[in-house]
Every structure is written in C-alpha cells, then in structure tokens.
C-alpha cells in the first residue's frame, strides 16, 4: 500500500501543477437613451402574419431593460481561433414564429449546426447573406410545416445576416466564431464565457448597432469579471 501511495505521489508531481479553467462573467449596460424602436406595421398588412398579433410588434435593435442592462451583445475572446469544437457542439435553433425570427441574435462556432425552423402557417424563404469568403450564400424555401433547414459556416464572421424576402421585416444576425469561448448577453445584460484556460486575453463585446468594445483580462484559477458599458451615439 505504501509503495502504491509513493508511485501515486510521484505521478502527481511528474504531471506538473493542475491547470484550472475559469469563467469570464460580466454585465453589459447601456448609458443614455436608445433610439426609439419602430412598429413593424407591414406585418399587420399580411393576413398570414397578422393573426399572431393584436397590434404591430416593435423592432428590437436595443434590448435595454429598466435598469439599463443590454441584451444581444456578443462577447468573445479576441484573437482566439482554430479552437472550434463546433462539429461536436449541440445545434443552435432559430425559429420563424409570428413572421419574426426568434431569437434574432445568436452566435455559433465554425462548423456548428444552425437549425432554422418554421412554426408559421405560411411560406418563408431563408436567405443567408455571408460576406466572408468561404461562407456560402443560400436562399431556401421553407413551406409551412416543412423540414427544418440546417446551416453550417466554415469561416468566422460577425453578424451574418439571415433574412426572409417574402417578409422583408424578418431578419436574424448570426455571429460565427472560431472557438467555443463566447456568450450572448441575456435580458439582464449578463454573460458568461465558460471554461477559459489560464492566460491573458482581450474580451470583445460586439453590438450590432453600437459597435465593439474591448477589455483586457488575465485568467488564472478563479472567475474573472469583465463589465462593459455602451453609450448612445
């Protein structure tokens, strides 16, 4: 038994110090008054779409809550690439419901499946419009009750647009990242990038309208805070 314990200790010393990953967490806040959202009035003119509403829904470019916390911000590690685990990651789902994409802001890894569903009782065309070489544009028909559509993208690309040309107010923005280290801020502005290996990083927060902010952090073995504040331009 003593001999066994000795070898266990030896093996432990030989493998060096234990490496612990940590999370980067934070809150995104918005300072100032965001531009007023607009009513999507054309949705009420379409008999197939208007059945889902009693009044026209609003655009939601600036998802700011009462506390000034900002949703739909993509937070990622700048310059970290080639570490995608997208091929084995679970698929991300966007639904077309009430003639709107839900959610309209998502992030996926390169090689990760993005599934687009149609819960509406009308036809949509799903038209993705990448601008980076290596990501292929497509324009697919999705009938009501039709099979889900699956997309993958090979190259990183911020805010790749998906749109429906039948209903031109429908759009979603998909950010493609070449690593698993990213998060999208929730309705309370909170985000968590999980299991970040120790090291020095630049954390990047990107909002579709407000641009990009960065924050330098060093990850050791405890969680690291990284808060961002966007201002009205």
């Amino acid at each position, binding site marked *: 038994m003593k001999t066994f314990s000795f070898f266990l200790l030896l093996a432990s010393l030989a493998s060096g110090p234990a490496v612990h990953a940590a999370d980067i967490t934070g809150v995104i806040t918005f300072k100032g008054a965001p*531009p*007023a*959202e*607009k*009513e*999507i*009035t*054309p949705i009420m003119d*379409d*008999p*197939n779409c208007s059945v889902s509403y009693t009044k026209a829904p609003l*655009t939601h*470019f600036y998802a700011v809550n009462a506390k000034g916390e900002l949703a739909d911000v993509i937070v990622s590690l700048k310059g970290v690439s080639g570490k995608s685990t997208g091929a084995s990651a679970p698929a991300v789902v966007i639904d077309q419901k009430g003639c709107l994409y839900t959610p309209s802001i998502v992030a996926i890894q390169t090689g990760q499946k993005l599934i687009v569903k149609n819960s509406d009782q*009308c*036809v949509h*065309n799903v*038209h993705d*419009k990448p601008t980076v070489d290596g990501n292929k*544009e*497509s*324009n*697919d*028909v999705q009938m009501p009750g039709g099979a889900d559509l699956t997309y993958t993208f090979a190259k990183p690309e911020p805010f790749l*647009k998906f749109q429906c*040309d*039948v*209903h*031109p*107010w429908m*759009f979603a923005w998909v950010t493609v990242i070449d690593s698993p280290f990213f998060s999208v801020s929730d309705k309370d502005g909170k985000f968590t990038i999980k299991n970040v290996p120790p090291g020095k990083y630049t954390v990047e927060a990107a909002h579709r*309208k*407000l*641009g990009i902010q960065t924050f330098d952090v060093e990850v050791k073995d405890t969680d690291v805070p990284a808060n961002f504040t966007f201002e*009205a*331009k």
Partner: protein
Amino acid sequence: MSKSAPNTSNPWLFRFAGLTALVTFLLIGLGGLVTSHGAGMSVPDWPNTYGYNMFAFPISKWVGGIFYEHTHRLLASAVGLLTTILAVWLWLADSRKWMRWLGVVAFLGVIAQGILGGLRVTMHMDSLGVFHATIAQLFFILLCAITLFTSRLWLELAAGKKSSFVSRSLRTLVLGTTVLIFIQLIIAATMRHQHAGLAIADFPLAYGKLWPATNPDAVASYNARRVSVTDEAPITAFQIKLQMAHRIVALVILLLVAACARQAWLRLGPTDALTKLALFWLALMCAQIALGAATIWTNKAADVATAHVMVGALSLVTGALWCLIGFGRSTSFPQTQTLGVFGVQTSMLANK
C-alpha cells in the same frame, strides 16, 4: 435616310411598337417595386416559381414579396412575347434593313435582360441588379426609338417633308444632358441595389450639414441611430458620398435641362414641337427632384421611390427622343422654311 425609308407608314405596327414600349415602361415600374420592397430574392428559383411552372403558380401563393417578384416575371414574359412579335413584324413588314436589325437587337436584348434577371436570383448577385436596371433603361429607349421610327412623323421627316434645322450646339447640349441623365440613373441603380436604405436620411441638408462628415466615428454614429423595420445593411462612407453625388448631379441636370429648354425656345421658337418637348422635359425634371426629396422625406416609401424610378426613365427617354428627332431634322433635310415635326409652323429664322 430617305433611300431606305418606306413610302407609307404602317399605323398598326406603330401602335404595336408603342404598346410594347408602354408595357416595358410599366415593367420598369414593377421592377422598381420589387427593389423598393426588397423582394428580389423572394422567389428563390428561376425560371420556375417555387417549383411551379411560372405560369401555373397559384394566385393564392402570391403573397408578401412573392407578389411583386412573380408579377414582375409575368410582365417581363409579356414584354418578351410582345418584343418577339414586334421583331418578326418588323422583319416581315418594314422595308428598311436597319429597322429589321433593330428589331433583332430588341429581341436579343429582351432575351439577355430576362436571363440577367434570372441569374441575379440564382447566383445571389446584387451587383447584377445594377446591370439589370441599367439595361432596362436602354431597352426602353430602344423600344421608344422603334416606335418613333415607325411613326408617320419620322417617315415625313425622312422624306424631307417636315424639317427645321436644329443647331449643332443645341443638339450637343441635349445629347450631353441625356448622357448625364443616363449616368445619374446608373448611380441611382447602384444606390438602390446595395439595399442599404437611405444613406442620408434628411434633405436638403445631409445629416444637418451641407456636406456630411464621413469619418469612421461619424458613420458609426449614423448607423447606431438608424432604426429601420427592414434593417438594411449598415451604410458606408462610400454610400453617403454616392448619394451626395446623386444630389449634385441632379442639380446639374436640372440646370442643363433648363438651359436646353431656354435654347430651344430662343432658337426654334416657342411653338416648335422640340421646344414643347424640352419644356415637358423640364417639367419632368422638376417632378423628378420633388420625388427625390419625397423619397427621403417618406423614408423611401416604396410607391414614392418607384415613382422616382419611373419618372427617371421617362426623363431619359425624353432626352433620347429629342436627340433622335433633333438629329433627324438636321442631318439630311433641306434648311428651308417648313413645318415643324408636329405640324407646327416653324422657320429657319428662329435658328439664327
């Protein structure tokens, strides 16, 4: 010209050519609606429509953007058919060899235009939309020219029955203005087919200034403030400069057309048909500038923007027809007192 001109006009051929030009004009309007509604890709397949033969696509499915794109395709098919008939008719009935070939050019043009429209969809290329829109304008001019050439008016001009000399300087002024309008339409088509919405949202100022800032911070600020139901792509400094160029060129064109009308009035006399045509042209330009302003003030409302496209097409074709008549009256006809092109008494004295 007289040598190859037919002795008698064919009024039905003339009317048919006019009908084809009219339907083409409507097609340009419908194409404008497709772009204004952002519906160009709403039917992903071509030449079929959602897997159907386009002529068998059920009316119940003509919804949303599909309505504009599908009806555009159907009307384009009608223009294709009319143009084919026109080309065959010209080949069989017109004794002028060049007119027969003009019909062939129109036939080939409509085929090319249809294929270009289809490729714009199947290849997902917005840039092809610029060519599609530009060729549409040229095709419209061609059909209006064929209509003019089959008219009694042109045959009388060719026979030397009606003419009053139009000075080279006036012809050059009108031609130059027409070319500038064509360039302006290319700028406009480039703006529209970038699907970026309004690069500048106010008028007559631009972001509150005579010349807007276009540095990266300013452009980022403009984009942050843009809240649009259709969420067009972010604007760029280039697009802002392009719209400024469009505004400046519009002003130059207005001044040039006014100069054309003034010169026509002074040289041809107020009652000459070409003077009246130049005044009509000036009225079109005033309407066009008002529509351009309204396009901005209504945040690019589809019907207003489309009216702007259609009046633009009319402005271009008006200048082109003026040139054709002006050059026709001045190349091979005797410079003596005679009747104006629409039977109005004119005199060479007015040209001096």
